[in-house]
């Protein structure tokens, strides 16, 4: 049995570390400034404190303290709507918008990370109380690693095969292999697309992947991430240079057309492979009886 001071301190520490470990600048390019970090670290600290204080409260039979956790849940739901709102408001300023599905996904991830901070601090506080500081820290670390593993996301790489697709025109119609992308009227634009444009074909590995890739939110996320990573040769008012993703309805393959600032097909394929599968777009028809039967 350890003093409450140690219990709470270790809990807060481990919970805050958990939040910090999950806070990295990633391909989403967000958050990228110290201010953005600070917001999330501060909230992570609050989450960790709630988790850590819960243990002594419960031991002292102050069961009403649990209601504070409900308050915390409310607070973190607010984080989600805060993220959603701010990203949605910024959509107009993006040359290639993220799309509402991707925004919802990012917001959800931010919310869940705070719960991870709570559970980590709760776990390590329990460890400190019943065992000692050493085991408390170990518990916290194990939880952090566990959450890292659990929260790892599926990416396009794991559900599909990504390869280069040849761009070509039939009259004004732009195709990536046999997938029709759009009708480009201006001859000059066609010339630029022919010279600088790149095409990518994403072949789904199974029926689950096919249904997921058909989702418009997932496609918009791919277009956004690819143009965020490779840059995009487009300005406001040049809609014909917007990256577009269209589907071959017979095979379920999707074809993307993009004019990146860095026309490097290898990097483009890698960028597409790294796009996360969005939770709300993910479909698993194969895990149902009907879907399985329909697939044979």
């Amino acid at each position, binding site marked *: 049995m350890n003093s409450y001071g140690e219990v709470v301190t270790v809990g807060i520490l481990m919970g805050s570390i958990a939040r910090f470990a999950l806070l990295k600048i990633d391909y989403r390019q967000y958050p990228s400034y110290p201010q953005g970090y600070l917001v999330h670290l501060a909230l992570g600290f609050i989450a960790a404190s709630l988790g850590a204080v819960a243990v002594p409260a419960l031991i002292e039979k102050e069961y009403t303290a649990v209601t504070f956790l409900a308050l915390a849940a409310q607070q973190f739901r607010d984080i989600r709507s805060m993220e959603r709102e701010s990203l949605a408001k910024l959509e*107009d300023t993006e040359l290639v918008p993220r799309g509402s599905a991707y925004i919802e996904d990012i917001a959800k991830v931010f919310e869940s990370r705070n719960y991870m901070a709570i559970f980590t601090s709760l776990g390590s506080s329990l460890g400190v109380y019943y065992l000692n500081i050493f085991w408390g820290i170990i518990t916290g670390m194990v939880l952090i690693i566990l959450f890292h593993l659990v929260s790892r996301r599926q990416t396009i790489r794991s559900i599909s095969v990504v390869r280069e697709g040849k761009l070509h025109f039939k*009259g*004004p119609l732009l195709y990536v292999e046999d997938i029709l992308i759009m*009708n*480009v*009227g*201006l*001859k*000059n*634009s066609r010339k630029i697309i022919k010279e600088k444009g790149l095409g990518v074909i994403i072949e789904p590995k199974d029926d689950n992947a096919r249904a997921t890739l058909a989702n418009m939110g997932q496609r918009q996320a791919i277009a956004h991430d690819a143009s965020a990573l490779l840059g995009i040769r487009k300005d*406001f*008012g040049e*809609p*014909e240079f917007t990256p577009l993703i269209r589907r071959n309805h017979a095979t379920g393959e999707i074809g993307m057309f993009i004019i990146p600032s860095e026309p490097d097909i290898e990097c483009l394929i890698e960028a597409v492979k790294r796009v996360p599968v969005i939770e709300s777009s993910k479909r698993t028809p194969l895990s149902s009886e009907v879907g399985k039967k329909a697939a044979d």
Partner: protein
Amino acid sequence: MDIGLKETIIAVITKNKASVSPGGGAPVFYADTDEELEKLAMYISRITTGMVHDLENGTYLIIKH
């Protein structure tokens, strides 16, 4: 507040007068040559930030997506 037209034909540019009926929803611009057609389409699309589509019968549409 931002108010604008979307998913509508903003303008029609044609050198084939017979193919377009005037008095529809969108303004119609006539051109005499292919070059003029191309130039008008480019100008109007840049002004309206719309997209140019080619109907291949001497008519271009400008549509805002």
